[in-house]
């Protein structure tokens, strides 16, 4: 026989004890590896969902402007598709009660309307045939999720609401803001419903919530939006190198919404204006041009009175000889303006044999529509009063003094604050003199897009005749509905306050002849100080052309220079690597898997303690076997090696079993998550993903840990003499200060100091990893300290005798008889208790003070979001009137906020937010204050009366960051940023804006977004227009009524209000669901503890059955004996419980102080009671079952 044969023989012979150890090791492996697999699965599922959602799309470009769909052509990718992606809402009117408004209407918000053609479906299973997608039928294909929400089926008619397209910024003077102008209703028939998979799930947004897609043919959507041939998104699959260069090469001025016009272009446009239907093939009849053209042209018509377009072109070529750079957005984007000027300066036009060089002069122009120009009267006067002289709706142009049409005649040049007025025959200002005060009234949209009438007084510098360069209507960019009308009376629905009665015959005649020619000039600087906005500070750039230079090559050269110099990124023409981002974000946002592992750690420790305990018990049982081996000359080392070998074999086999268990465990945990995820269906994508690395790591780590535990369990053997072992002793009995007490002192000291450090650190550290570390660290160390203390006490209890033995004392003494065994049992229970108590104290509930102004809701009963932005101030009576709201609605105050759509930063989003959603809050909102701050960075550390003002803090020139607020939980767990830290978001210039977290809100409703001040928002996200996030202040008891009233009034915009408490509870539900999972771990730990306790008890009773029989023989009642046995274990139970509770409460304390968890109370007591009950039940069962056996037979056996 060899050593190994003996080892194998032992394994088989002691199979009962070994099986227990094996199962313990298996459990440890299962818990550890299972925890790793849960993490793998979470990440893997998120990743595969993200990839599934993207379908074939690798990279995507989504722009705020509409560009040519043809831009996609020729981009280096195997698959290309231009599309219109629009946010909107869907409504299905139930045919049952069409009359009752609000009733019988099913709405679904957050819908995405995708205008796509067959290229989108290519190579996938094509829903409906190719011709459908290439045509323009008013039909839609819904995905199952949206169809389900709408309860719509094939053949139903639904209405999709999207935002109308308009190049003119809605938040500028001429922007169209009222609901009819903003909303476009598309009535479509449902042709098919796509299953919840493949492209039916298509979404560029990473969110576990399934998208709500309505696919319509691209051409249909283009036509409805008036965007023929245009798109706002390009999707690419299998991208090849050189994409960005190809984009730049493909871009035209049209894509930038820009155009460079030549004199001939403008001449033709004018000809078209005069004769829109071109009835006479470019020859304009006298009736059309009479009184409308400059004197030069009145002499040009043919004998029949026909004015040929060529004549107009000639006129333009000589009199209005310049190029203009204009945008259909009316203002030139600041970067376009800058690039346009740089491009013009880089030009050198060379002509003739002499090689003369000419540099064109770039002339910026800002024109604005004034409400009126009038001589300033000394006292306020009623508007439109009799005798008042005014020019209503006049165009005023701002130019640099030396660029003015009459610059040469003005010496010194025009000053800021001075004005030049046009003089013509019907001018009402014929009597004004230089030096008179002239009042300029104009409208300007304030922060809530409320047009404010402002007045500016100018000093009249002089007047000028409307001739030469001053006779030019092309200063003003086109504005459909106004500039294309031949008479002022025909203006269509002007978006500014307009009163037709103010237009006098003189105004009409001016329009007839001069149309949009400026009636006044001021300096560009003054104009910009009045009218510049975030969309730009110039309406056109002009490049005067020398008469000797040919126009065509000039345009070509300027255009190509401009395009070469415009950076596609500035215009948002940047492809985002969607697939890459998906893989990155799939790594998960919340550290659920890390936390899970952290909490599992205690369970792993518990199972290791069980392994140690079981192994220890088996050694105890085999003590004399060890003793005999020693007596026959085995070395201690050999004996230990034998035991160790057995242990390793058990760990290896147990671990392998545990791996199978891990799969089961992980699958169960995922099932638990799936089942308890608030909102249910969202997590159906969660599937078991097996990471081989995790399996290997989990297996290796568990074996290592089991082996170390076993090594430790056999350690004591070295110090026992063979004689003691032969006598069955496995405990070192010593009375003086032994090594083990010294060890325990050391552990106690180190653990207490360490725990204290962690505890203190828990209050001060802010990094979430550090916080979690301090929590788990102080927990583990405190547990160790408690157990070290218990060890000392057990040693003492085991050795000291007392004069008056009682049952309880006898129990304690017995607990001390096998101190290690007792310690392990108590440790098991302590670990389980720790888990349960710690998790319980993290449980969150909505506090009573939630509705206070200083609570988490900020005193707002409701918040709302709209799918299509709202551009009007919902507090204005004029806006509210058509909404037919009840009288008490006066009390309702709505704070509108701007939103840069992005990733949800709350725990509701399992993905890592790469582009967090940003909300801009208004000044009024900041002034209102409220909410509770966990912390903030006041200027120089001061406390602020209203911490919201940190958003408005002064920043040094060099501070290139924007102050932002975040919710404390979102910052800690999802964004992983602490106070003073930075988060980067892509701004509208395509660069990164650094948001500095200057304040953390506590338990607030703002977990899904970052908050910045409106000013900063407009600066960094100038192209995001309108309000789509609302905080609604009103009487709490009317919450439901307010919600209903607003939702039905603004339903088409996809306005959905949510009670703030509901939003907070949604967050809590997720957090509490996580905690429920951890709680399950705690219960499993408790089960282990109970098993351990029962085993120890059974073993103890078995070992002492003789002793117990004797006591019975001496006249003890069986019941008393049960109590005796229980007393011993009750001590362990209570000791473990106390250690676990204490450690948990102390470890949790710093984190509760910071985050305000629910008050521990009855529920905790209940839980602890449950632990005691389970322990006692295990004890009683064990004691009773053993003591029921005839004890006297046991006595005889001794």
């Amino acid at each position, binding site marked *: 026989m*060899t050593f190994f044969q003996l080892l194998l023989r032992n394994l088989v012979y002691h199979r009962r004890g070994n099986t227990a150890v094996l199962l313990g090791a298996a459990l440890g492996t299962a818990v550890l590896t299972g925890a790793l697999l849960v993490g793998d699965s979470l990440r893997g599922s998120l990743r595969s969902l993200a990839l599934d959602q993207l379908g074939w799309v690798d990279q995507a470009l989504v722009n705020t402007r509409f560009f040519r769909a043809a831009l996609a052509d020729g981009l280096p990718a195997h698959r290309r598709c231009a599309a219109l992606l629009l946010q909107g809402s869907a409504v299905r009117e139930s045919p049952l009660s069409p009359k009752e408004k609000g009733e019988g209407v099913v709405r679904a918000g957050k819908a995405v309307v995708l205008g796509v053609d067959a290229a989108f479906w290519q190579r996938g299973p094509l829903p409906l045939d190719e011709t459908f997608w290439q045509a323009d039928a008013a039909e839609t294909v819904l995905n199952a999720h949206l169809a389900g929400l709408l309860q719509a089926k094939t053949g139903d008619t639904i209405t999709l609401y999207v935002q109308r397209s308009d190049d003119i910024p809605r938040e500028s003077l001429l922007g169209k803001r009222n609901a009819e102008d903003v909303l476009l209703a598309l009535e479509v028939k449902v042709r098919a419903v796509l299953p919840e998979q493949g492209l039916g799930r298509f979404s560029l947004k990473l969110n576990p919530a399934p998208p709500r897609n309505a696919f319509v043919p691209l051409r249909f959507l283009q036509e409805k939006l008036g965007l023929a041939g245009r798109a706002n998104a390009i999707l690419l699959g299998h991208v090849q190198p050189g994409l960005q260069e190809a984009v730049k090469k493909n871009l035209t001025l049209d894509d930038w919404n820009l155009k460079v016009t030549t004199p001939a272009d403008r001449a033709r446009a004018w000809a078209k204006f005069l004769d829109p239907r071109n009835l006479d093939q470019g020859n304009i009849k006298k009736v059309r041009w009479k009184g409308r053209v400059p004197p030069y042209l009145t002499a040009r018509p043919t004998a029949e009175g026909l004015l040929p377009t060529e004549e107009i072109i000639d006129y333009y070529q000589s009199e209005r000889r310049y190029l203009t750079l204009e945008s259909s957005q009316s203002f030139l984007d600041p970067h376009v303006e800058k690039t346009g000027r740089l491009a013009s300066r880089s030009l050198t036009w060379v002509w003739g044999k002499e090689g003369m060089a000419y540099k064109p002069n770039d002339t910026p122009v800002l024109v604005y529509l004034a409400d009126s120009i009038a001589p300033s009267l000394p006292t306020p006067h009623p508007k439109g009063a009799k005798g008042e002289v005014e020019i209503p709706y006049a165009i005023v142009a701002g130019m640099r003094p030396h660029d003015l049409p009459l610059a040469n005649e003005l010496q010194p040049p025009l000053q800021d604050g001075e004005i030049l007025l046009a003089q013509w025959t019907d001018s009402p200002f014929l009597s004004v003199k230089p030096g008179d005060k002239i009042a300029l009234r104009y409208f300007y949209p304030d922060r809530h897009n409320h047009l404010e009438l402002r007045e500016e007084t100018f000093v009249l510098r002089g007047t000028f005749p409307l001739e030469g360069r001053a006779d030019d209507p092309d200063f003003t960019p086109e504005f459909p509905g106004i500039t294309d009308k031949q008479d002022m009376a025909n203006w269509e629905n002007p978006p500014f306050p307009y009163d037709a009665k103010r237009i006098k015959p003189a105004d009409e005649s001016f329009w007839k002849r001069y149309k949009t020619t400026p009636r006044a000039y001021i300096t560009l600087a003054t104009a910009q100080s009045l009218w510049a906005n975030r969309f730009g500070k110039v309406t056109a750039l002009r490049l005067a052309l020398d008469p000797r230079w040919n126009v065509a090559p000039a345009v070509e050269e300027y255009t190509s220079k401009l395009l070469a110099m415009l950076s596609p990124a500035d215009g948002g023409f940047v492809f985002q690597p969607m697939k890459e981002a998906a893989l990155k974000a799939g790594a998960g946002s919340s550290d659920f898997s890390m936390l899970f592992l952290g909490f599992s750690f205690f369970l792993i420790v518990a199972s290791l303690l069980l392994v140690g305990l079981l192994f220890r018990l088996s050694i105890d049982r085999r003590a004399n076997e060890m003793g005999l*081996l020693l*007596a026959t*000359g*085995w070395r201690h080392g050999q004996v230990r090696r034998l035991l160790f070998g057995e242990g390793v074999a058990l760990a290896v086999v147990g671990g392998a079993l545990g791996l199978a268990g891990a799969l089961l465990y992980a699958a169960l945990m995922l099932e638990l998550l799936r089942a308890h995820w608030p909102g249910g269906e969202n997590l159906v994508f969660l599937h078991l993903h097996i990471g081989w690395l995790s399996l290997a790591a989990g297996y290796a780590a568990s074996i290592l840990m089991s082996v170390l535990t076993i090594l430790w369990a056999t350690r004591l053997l070295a110090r026992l003499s063979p004689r003691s072992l032969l006598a069955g002793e496995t405990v070192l009995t010593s009375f003086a200060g032994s090594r083990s007490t010294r060890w325990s002192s050391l552990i106690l000291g180190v653990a207490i100091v360490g725990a204290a450090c962690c505890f203190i650190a828990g209050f001060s550290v802010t990094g979430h990893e550090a916080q979690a570390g301090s929590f788990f660290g102080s927990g583990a160390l405190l547990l160790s300290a408690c157990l070290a203390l218990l060890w000392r006490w057990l040693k003492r209890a085991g050795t000291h005798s007392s004069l008056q033995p009682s049952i309880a004392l006898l129990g304690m003494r017995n607990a001390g008889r096998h101190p290690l065994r007792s310690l392990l049992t108590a440790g098991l229970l302590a670990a389980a208790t720790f888990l349960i108590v710690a998790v319980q104290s993290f449980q969150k509930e909505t506090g009573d003070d939630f509705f206070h102004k200083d609570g988490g809701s900020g005193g707002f009963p409701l918040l709302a979001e709209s799918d299509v932005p709202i551009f009007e101030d919902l507090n204005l009576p004029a806006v509210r009137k058509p909404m037919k709201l009840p009288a008490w609605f006066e009390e309702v105050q709505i704070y509108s906020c701007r939103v840069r759509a992005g990733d949800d930063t709350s725990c509701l989003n399992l993905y890592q937010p790469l582009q967090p959603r940003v909300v801009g809050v208004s000044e009024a909102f900041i002034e209102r204050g409220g909410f509770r701050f966990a912390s903030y960075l006041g200027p120089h550390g001061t406390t602020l009366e209203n911490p919201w003002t940190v958003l408005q803090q002064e920043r040094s020139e060099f501070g290139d960051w924007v102050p932002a607020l975040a919710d404390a939980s979102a910052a800690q767990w999802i964004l992983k940023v602490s106070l003073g830290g930075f988060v980067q978001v892509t701004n509208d210039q395509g660069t990164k804006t650094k948001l500095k977290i200057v304040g953390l809100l506590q338990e607030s409703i703002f977990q899904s977004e970052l908050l910045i001040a409106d000013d900063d928002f407009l600066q960094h996200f100038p192209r995001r227009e309108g309000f789509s996030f609302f905080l609604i202040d009103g009487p709490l008891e009317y919450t439901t009524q307010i919600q209903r009233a607003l939702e039905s009034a603004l339903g088409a915009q996809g306005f959905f209000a949510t009670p703030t408490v509901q939003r907070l509870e949604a967050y809590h539900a997720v957090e509490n669901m996580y905690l429920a999972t951890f709680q399950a771990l705690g219960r499993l730990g408790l089960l282990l503890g109970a098993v351990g306790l029962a085993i120890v008890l059974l073993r103890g009773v078995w070992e002492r059955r003789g002793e117990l029989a004797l006591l019975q023989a001496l006249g003890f009642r069986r019941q008393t004996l049960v109590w005796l046995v229980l007393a011993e274990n009750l001590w362990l139970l209570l000791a473990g419980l106390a250690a676990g509770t204490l450690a948990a409460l102390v470890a949790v304390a710093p984190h509760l102080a910071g985050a305000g968890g629910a008050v521990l109370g009855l529920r905790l007591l209940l839980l602890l009671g449950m632990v005691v009950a389970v322990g006692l039940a295990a004890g009683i069962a064990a004691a009773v079952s053993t003591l029921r056996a005839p004890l006297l037979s046991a006595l005889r056996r001794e």
Partner: protein
Amino acid sequence: MSLTVLNLWKSFPTRNGDLSILRGAHLEMQTGDALAILGPSGAGKSTLLHILGTLDRPTDGVVRFHDQDPFALPEKELAHFRNRNIGFIFQDHYLLPQCSVLENVLIPSLAGVVENRAELEAHARALLEKVGLQERLEHRPAELSGGERQRVAIARALLFHPQLVLADEPTGNLDRRTAQAVGQLLLNLQQQEKSMLIVVTHSPELARTLPKQLEMIDGVLQPWKS
């Protein structure tokens, strides 16, 4: 080979201070000597035997095997010394239940490197033949009677031709006839092996079969007065 024990003291720590069990025991033996130790229960006979068998350490005094102090050896060598020079027979035979009779006898051979395993196995078989168990080599201890088990234990103790064989109440659990047989067997084997033998027993009958008897009283060894 000789065994010298001089002024041997052994005390155990207890709750009420140290308790001295051996209080200056003397003993002298030569190769081939056989000795019975008697004495009242609790006198310290087993304690003395444990110390002689190097299973426990003396508090004070000298133990010499042929001028060598085994307790001065490091643990590894002490174990080897015990393995090769001492054979222990206990009242409880301590056979490994998971091993066969032959394997049990060979247990000491697993403690170190053995040059010729086959030879050793042959020796084990021979020993088992001598104790009359040649038919039971593959049996498990559970299948043997008390006397048979004790004979296996004797064979195990003699595997490496130990110089000193220590038997602590080897017949304590046996009936008189079996006890007598086992005692006789022990003595025969001792004479064949030419080793020293110390038998602790409560049985004057067994003691008388040995050439010399001592009695343990008050922690010292005295001549036996029957």
